[in-house]
């Protein structure tokens, strides 16, 4: 019985990445075409932004006359999810997995690099179409992509290097403020920095410079943590980095030139969906390159046994320093992106809660794993948004889920795995043997 079931679902395992992306494309297109009328027909009103979680959790009104109304809406949402997401998911993968496998095979044999780029382009298309439907959905996706960068950058330190750093919100704050000041002073008319100095049309060209500058300043400030704490191993880094986070926060609270505790608003709207997507892709690529090189694997050696690493010619101090500054750079860069998405930052938002969020994403997704960080960032972010209507209870549900993960998978969902895009875009083997070339 069980084997029969797994046989039937076997095409899921044999669906290549290309197949999943095609399915995503179909779903996004379907929702675009019939989502609105379907939602109206089912009595939901408008297209549910995040699979209807917001609607389901929104009204726990248990008063008698309304409960049927609510139940009706919930049922509508479930039907909607089945019709728009689940059914196409099963049908399209089942109908096309042979075809997509063949196409993926042809592409892969032609050029692995081309295939990878095509997959990334497809992913972009799917996300773009899916987020085109609601601005809320788009915002959540943009924030999630930024969270991916932050999570990855922290995983380099806490996962790959195995130290416990808690200064990431501080790095993000530095990056956010530096890049904000840069873009605002140059391209906007503001109370803080006076009139715009350059025409706004140049802003997109200078934005990468602003971000890199933010990251670089964050990395430079990370030296304040790295120099004293990397002389030894142990708990020092955790404590010093926590102190760093609080110092940065109160520094910005007391810097009246950037708004002090009121915060800084009015950044130019530069962090659009494609811009963030490109930075995320770039971040994943560079970080993944680093951790897969022998230079990057030296981090693992330092973590697992520093003395042995040193005796095997690894310059341990330089390795730790580099990785820490590298992580700080990406956190700062992500902070810059965040500032230009929200277009308002204040010191209070780079505090303990941010730290808890980032740490949760790293440890939930999995230590020492790029894919784990992506999964962690996406799932914690979506979960956080989906459970938003629960308000306070959200902070019970998410920790409980985290505790369960820590009990059953102490290193996170997808820990200690290499992330190889070429491996991912490869066609899957089809068991019946009709794809003889595979």
């Amino acid at each position: 019985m069980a084997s029969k079931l797994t046989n039937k679902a076997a095409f899921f395992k044999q669906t290549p990445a290309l197949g999943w992306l095609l399915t995503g494309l179909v779903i996004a297109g379907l929702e675009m075409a019939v989502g609105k009328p379907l939602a109206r027909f089912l009595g939901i009103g408008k297209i549910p932004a995040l699979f209807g979680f917001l609607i389901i959790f929104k009204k726990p009104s248990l008063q008698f006359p309304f409960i049927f109304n609510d139940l009706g809406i919930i049922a509508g949402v479930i039907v909607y999810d089945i019709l728009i997401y689940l059914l196409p998911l099963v049908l399209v993968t089942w109908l096309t997995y042979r075809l997509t496998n063949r196409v993926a095979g042809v592409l892969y044999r032609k050029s692995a690099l081309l295939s990878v780029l095509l997959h990334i382009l497809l992913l972009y298309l799917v996300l773009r179409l899916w987020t085109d439907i609601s601005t809320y959905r788009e915002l959540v996706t943009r924030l999630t992509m930024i969270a991916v960068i932050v999570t990855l950058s922290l995983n380099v330190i806490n996962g790959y290097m195995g130290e416990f750093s808690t200064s990431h919100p501080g790095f993000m704050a530095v990056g956010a403020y530096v890049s904000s000041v840069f873009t605002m002073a140059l391209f906007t008319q503001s109370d803080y920095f006076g009139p715009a100095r350059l025409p706004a049309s140049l802003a997109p060209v200078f934005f990468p410079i602003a971000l890199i500058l933010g990251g670089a300043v964050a990395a430079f400030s990370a030296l304040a943590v790295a120099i004293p704490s990397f002389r030894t191993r142990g708990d020092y880094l955790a404590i010093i980095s926590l102190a760093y986070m609080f110092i940065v926060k109160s520094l910005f609270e007391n810097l009246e030139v950037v708004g002090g505790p009121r915060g800084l608003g009015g950044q130019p709207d530069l962090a659009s969906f494609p811009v963030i997507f490109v930075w995320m892709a770039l971040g994943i690529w560079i970080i993944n390159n680093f951790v897969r090189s022998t230079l990057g694997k030296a981090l693992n050696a330092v973590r697992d046994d520093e003395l042995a690493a040193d005796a095997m010619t690894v310059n341990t101090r330089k390795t730790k320093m580099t990785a820490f500054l590298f992580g700080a750079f990406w956190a700062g860069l992500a902070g810059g992106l965040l500032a230009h998405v929200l277009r308002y930052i204040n010191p209070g938002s780079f505090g303990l809660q941010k730290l808890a969020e980032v740490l949760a994403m790293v440890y939930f997704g999995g230590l020492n794993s790029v894919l784990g960080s992506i999964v962690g960032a996406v799932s914690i972010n979506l979960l956080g948004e989906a459970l938003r209507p629960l308000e306070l209870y959200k902070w019970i549900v998410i920790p409980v889920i985290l505790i369960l993960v820590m009990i059953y998978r102490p290193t996170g969902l997808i820990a200690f795995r290499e992330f190889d895009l070429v491996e991912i875009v490869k066609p899957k083997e089809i068991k019946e043997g009709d794809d003889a070339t595979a």
Partner: protein
Amino acid sequence: MPLLEVKHMTHYFGGLRAVHDFNLSIEKGEIRGLIGPNGAGKSTVFNLITGIYRPTEGQVIFKGQNITGKRPHQIAAMGLGRTFQNLRLWRHMTVLEHVKMARYSKLTYGLVGAFFDTRKRRREEAEAEKVARDLLDLLGVYNVAHELVTNLPYGMQRRVEMARALAVEPDILFLDEPTAGMNPEELVEMMDVIRQVHQEFDLAIFLIEHRMKFVMELCQRIQTLVFGEVIAEGTPEEIQNNPKVIEAYLGEEVET
């Protein structure tokens, strides 16, 4: 000129004198043994020469250069490979990654290469992998190249550690109790491995060992360390017949 020379090395841990006036001179290709009862300071001597501790007094000269006070990775990169008494493998890394890691000082692609996957990096990583695979082949652990070391039996872990030490391209190899925890069969195997690498790479070897049979058979000269001081030095026969050594070390063994 000797390959490695230690002159009047003394080391204190706080008020405790761990090593006193240790002298050593090893020629190219020589196999030298260091024996002594537990707590005599043998591993401390190793750690002092390899740079983990800085000697309180004295000098270490390797290939004509004073290496006293240099960091361990610098000394290792000059051509000093070592193994550890308690293995010290990296538990989340595969066998191949272990050996490649010891090529660290030979990589020149730098951070640019690491971040952007340049052609230079690909070439150097491929070279490192080839060296690593050859060493794994030599030590008979080629077929477990992609296993995590923690999944391997003890004897194989020892071989991996040896391969890792050899990947440094050492002129001298320090072996800290290479047969610790081994059964007689594995011991004989390890002896063959050491002989093999000694011939293959024309290495000098400096080893700490507890098993007399092992030391007597392999080493050309032996030093005996008791309470941080060398009480005897000579060929295996001389050491075996030295009354001081028998009293301090072998005597114990005979009695038990």
